[in-house]
């Protein structure tokens, strides 16, 4: 240990000063860089990543921004984000559904071209891609919701009847027509954006959003009673007292009453 009374030699003193100054500068510059690097993670909602892209927080350490995926795409769907002009971290690949959607190539050339695995080679079936989720964001302008039969988004969907279906309901406005509501099923929608591109409105009523915006999540402890009951094959809570219900169905005036209906379920022991 150097004795505290002995002064540092000028060279040593200078070295320590330089080192301290450099370290200070690096902490300042590094903080700024860290801020910029983290800021770059804020992927805007309209920028969709190519099929198989790792989650955004992993993507930015994986993608070297070479553009090989862009070159591989036969439909010129993908673009590299230009500095200061695009919705994604500079140089990273993205596409805008309303401009050019992903055509869901069977051989997924973009994934095959990626040298780093930023686009995961584990994606072998394009139907498993999850680039985003289509959401019918504006029911008030969607022509089908107005009672017309536009159906365009439904018809163009490459995963028609699985990712999107038309769900019938009563058209209360006219009183005697149906509404064919385009309904997206998130577990099958790839987020290709073909529906958003095809929507006939000047501004699409159906839009592909990143999952973080498109989806909610149910609380861990929620259980659907009817599913539990079916799984168990018996009521979940035992010994529950079954009070007499006023049930719709035969023997009541329910069917005769306006709006009366036959229930879709059968309670055990009811209606005999």
């Amino acid at each position: 240990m150097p004795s505290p009374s002995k002064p540092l030699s000028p060279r040593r003193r200078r070295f320590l000063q330089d080192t301290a100054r450099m370290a200070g500068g690096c902490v300042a510059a590094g903080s700024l860089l860290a801020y910029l690097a983290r800021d770059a993670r804020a992927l805007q909602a309209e920028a969709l990543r190519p099929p198989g892209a790792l989650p955004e927080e992993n993507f930015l350490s994986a993608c070297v921004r070479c553009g090989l995926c862009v070159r591989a795409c036969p439909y010129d769907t993908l673009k590299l984000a230009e500095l200061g002009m695009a919705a994604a971290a500079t140089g990273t690949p993205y596409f805008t559904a309303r401009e050019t959607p992903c055509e869901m190539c069977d051989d997924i050339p973009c994934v095959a071209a990626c040298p780093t695995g930023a686009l995961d080679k584990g994606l072998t079936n394009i139907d498993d891609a999850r680039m985003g989720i289509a959401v019918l964001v504006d029911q008030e302008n969607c022509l089908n919701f107005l009672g017309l039969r536009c159906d365009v988004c439904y018809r163009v969907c490459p995963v028609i009847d699985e990712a999107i279906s038309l769900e019938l309901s009563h058209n209360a406005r006219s009183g005697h027509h149906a509404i064919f509501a385009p309904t997206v099923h998130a577990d099958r929608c790839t987020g290709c954006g073909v529906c958003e591109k095809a929507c006939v409105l000047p501004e699409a009523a159906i839009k592909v959003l990143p999952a973080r915006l498109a989806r909610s999540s149910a609380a861990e402890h929620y259980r659907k009673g009817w599913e539990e009951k079916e799984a168990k094959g018996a009521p979940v809570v035992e010994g529950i007292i079954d009070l007499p219900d006023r049930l719709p169905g035969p023997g009541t005036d329910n069917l005769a009453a306006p709006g009366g209906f036959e229930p879709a379920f059968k309670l055990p022991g009811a209606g005999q």
Partner: protein
Amino acid sequence: MSARTHDPVGREAIEVKGWFGAHRYLLLRRFSQVFFLVLFLLGPWLGLWIVQGTLAASLTLGILPLTDPFILLQGVVGGHRAELSALIGGLIVLVSYSLIGGRVYCAWVCPINPVTDAANWLHRRLDLPKGWQPMRSTRLWVLATVLIVSALTGTIAWEVINPITMLHRGLVFGMGFVWMMVAAIFLFDLIVSRHGWCGHVCPVGAFYGLVGHKSLLRVSAANRAACNNCMDCYAVCPENQVISPALTGKPGSTPLILSPDCTNCGRCIDVCAVDVFAFTHRFNDHINEPADPIPAQNPQAT
């Protein structure tokens, strides 16, 4: 005002070797820089896909993968295990530069080099003051900082601002606001700090310097006995601290420029009227004896 005490840099060499002789490596270098750029541009411009991608990662003729090892390294410390293709590409680049000199990348390939060279040319033309000259080790500190930030943020941190890949990507894919970045570097080198960017700041250059620590291809001042102290080599060398140990070393010291900072640009070879410098390999530390007018002294001559 600084008084001009000698001829314009390189005048003597031009007189002795002719203009082309005195600009040989400079011309070769510009040719190489244009060549590598055009290789990437043939695809997007003419549909001739010899090379796809950018300097960050590319695929040549559909089989040869090349990856920038520094970007790869940031990805690794950022937490991503790259796939084989990128790793092979990175290894090829790493081995190549460790043989021919890491900073050969700087002098012969990097698209920012013509920008900083131009800034330096104008700087000398206008006879501007040196400006801010931080320690040479600054870029190593920047390099370390970049790696730490990559690790902490889980990103490839330098790619957020790397002007090299931005300019290259800009030319190959679309510029955006990249021109501003390039202009900023030009002005930084012109006004704030001579040789500021490439000589002091750029962590990519620092990284390649480390890669080329033991490179085979080196410049040697083998003919240093002929040096007439015109100082032109110091004036043209972007890293002129590397010259002294080789040129003015004690008798018996190696004439090789062994510093990894040397970019192997060969400009010192061009600009020397008496041909002190030459490219050679790192094991050739032969020194030419002072020129002797009497050839009969050579014992091999019979």
